């Protein structure tokens, strides 16, 4: 008689001994504790996000007598829509690379631990807590006709002043908005990158240095690859927030430099047309989701297979 091979009938495995944590979960009744703890926030967010999302889609696509594309047509026909879309896109395309180069330079400077670095970090972080409206007003004091920039130019005996924010000077208007956004929002990228750098062990960098790698080589091949997750998060966040730029331009130029969010505001508050406002909001949503998806695809770390 062949003895039963041990592999044929595996011993009845007891369920793995419950850990202490699972114990605690099980003891307290039918609904597990963590779900009870998490549920209120889920319900709240679902109500405040999914409900308006649904209402918004309906607002954009519905008239009194069923579905219609009129609101979308009206949005597209509006003379401000395309300039607003173009400005929004332009702002992001120019701002984001500048911002990332700037923030990366700042983070690397801090990494050198210069004297007074605590003070520097504080000043560089202040804009984190400044609203875009306040940032717009701050830069308004500089760029307005009788503002500090023109004053400084006059003091230096250079110029009699320039209408930086006039609709006749679209370039300087754009530069003003760009500078204000660069000033305000680079701090966010900075803290994400500084936090990312802190998690990178210095050994790799030092090892590369020992083997004779130059600063640029180390940056390119050692630091940046390890910073990838932080860069990716910052990139997605900043692009989506960049699409929402609004009050900076509003404070600096009014409607002379239209942006998509500003147009939503115009349609909703001034023109009292919630349908077109909702339509523009949906365009923004689509753009946000689109860019996030593209970034996640393009930036996926090939060596890890799955991005965090």
């Amino acid at each position: 008689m062949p003895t039963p091979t041990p592999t044929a009938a595996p011993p009845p495995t007891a369920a793995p001994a419950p850990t202490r944590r699972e114990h605690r979960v099980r003891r307290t009744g039918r609904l597990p504790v963590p779900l009870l703890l998490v549920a209120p926030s889920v319900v709240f967010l679902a109500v405040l996000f999914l409900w308006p999302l649904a209402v918004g889609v309906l607002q954009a696509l519905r008239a009194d007598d069923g579905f219609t594309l009129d609101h979308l047509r009206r949005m597209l026909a509006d003379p401000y829509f395309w300039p607003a879309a173009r400005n929004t896109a332009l702002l992001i395309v120019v701002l984001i690379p500048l911002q990332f180069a700037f923030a990366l330079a700042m983070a690397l400077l801090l990494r050198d631990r210069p004297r007074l670095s605590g003070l520097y970090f504080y000043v560089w972080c202040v804009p984190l807590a400044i609203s875009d409206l306040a940032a717009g007003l701050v830069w308004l004091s500089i760029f307005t006709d009788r503002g500090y920039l023109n004053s400084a130019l006059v003091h230096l005996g250079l110029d009699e002043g320039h209408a930086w924010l006039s609709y006749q000077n679209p370039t300087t208007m754009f530069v003003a908005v760009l500078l204000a956004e660069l000033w305000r929002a680079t701090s966010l990228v900075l803290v994400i990158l500084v936090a990312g750098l802190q998690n990178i062990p210095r050994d790799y960098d030092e090892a590369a240095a020992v083997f004779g790698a130059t600063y640029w080589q180390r940056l390119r091949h050692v630091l940046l690859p390890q910073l990838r997750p932080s860069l990716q998060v910052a990139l997605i966040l900043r692009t989506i927030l960049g699409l929402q730029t609004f009050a900076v331009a509003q404070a600096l130029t009014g409607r002379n430099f239209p942006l998509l969010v500003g147009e939503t505001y115009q349609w909703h508050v001034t023109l009292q047309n919630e349908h077109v406002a909702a339509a523009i909001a949906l365009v923004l949503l689509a753009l946000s989701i689109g860019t996030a998806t593209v970034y996640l695809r393009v930036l996926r770390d090939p060596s890890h297979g799955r991005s965090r």
Partner: protein
Amino acid sequence: MTRRRWRTTRRTALVQLACVTVTLFMGLPLYLIALAALSSRESLDRFPLALLPTGVSVDTMTAFLGSTGVLPAFRNSVEIGLLSLVLSLLLGVPAGYALARFAFRGRDPYQLFLLLVRALPIVVLAVPLARVFLSTGLYDTTYAVALVHTALALPTTVLITSAVFVSVPVEHEEAAMVFGATAPRAFARVVLPQALPGIAAAAIFTFVTSWNEVFGAAVLTLNRRSLPAQVLTTLSDSPLAYRFAGGFALVVPALVFIALMRRYLLNMWGSTVR
């Protein structure tokens, strides 16, 4: 050897130079808005403007604070901020605790959901919510704005508090329970006191988010405006002095806030967004 030392010195000097330049770019606008807001009306009307504080006066600020709607808006802003703070703590702290202490099913999808919500544009919410709030009678109340601001800040509150709870050793809690405390009691007596500073940081973060938010507040209110919404809606027909003073009034809390929260800056914005 000396050459190497010279190179190090040069490098240090260059780094310092770069740091000072960046600091000037970041700090100068703050100096200028303070200068503008604290100048007298006459010196603001002059051109060119003085670049040094010569005519310091609080007239411009007092005129701003005295103009119609500003003080009530200030009060509304504080009220909205505090309401969002309480709400986001009530909803966020338990969730943060759950994320820190339990490995439960749905944990990863939940975190993904939080990130998703964090990335959603407020514009997409505010416009339809104006309609929803109109039909529920919440429109033009501080509650409506507080609800939206809570939704904005909640994901971050959850992530910050969970990071805080992770740093409180589980052993302390278990020791308390060994000595007969119930789980809620152990939490209240042992965990909460240790987590309090971090939770306070999360609370202040919510307050600042709310203090800064302008689009939702402007779209969801008519008479009960927050300060930014008030400044925004009166922007086009207000004198420059009013706008400068408004800008400064919005900036000051930021200076205080960053000074108070320096220790938590990286936790709040840096590592928690991952």
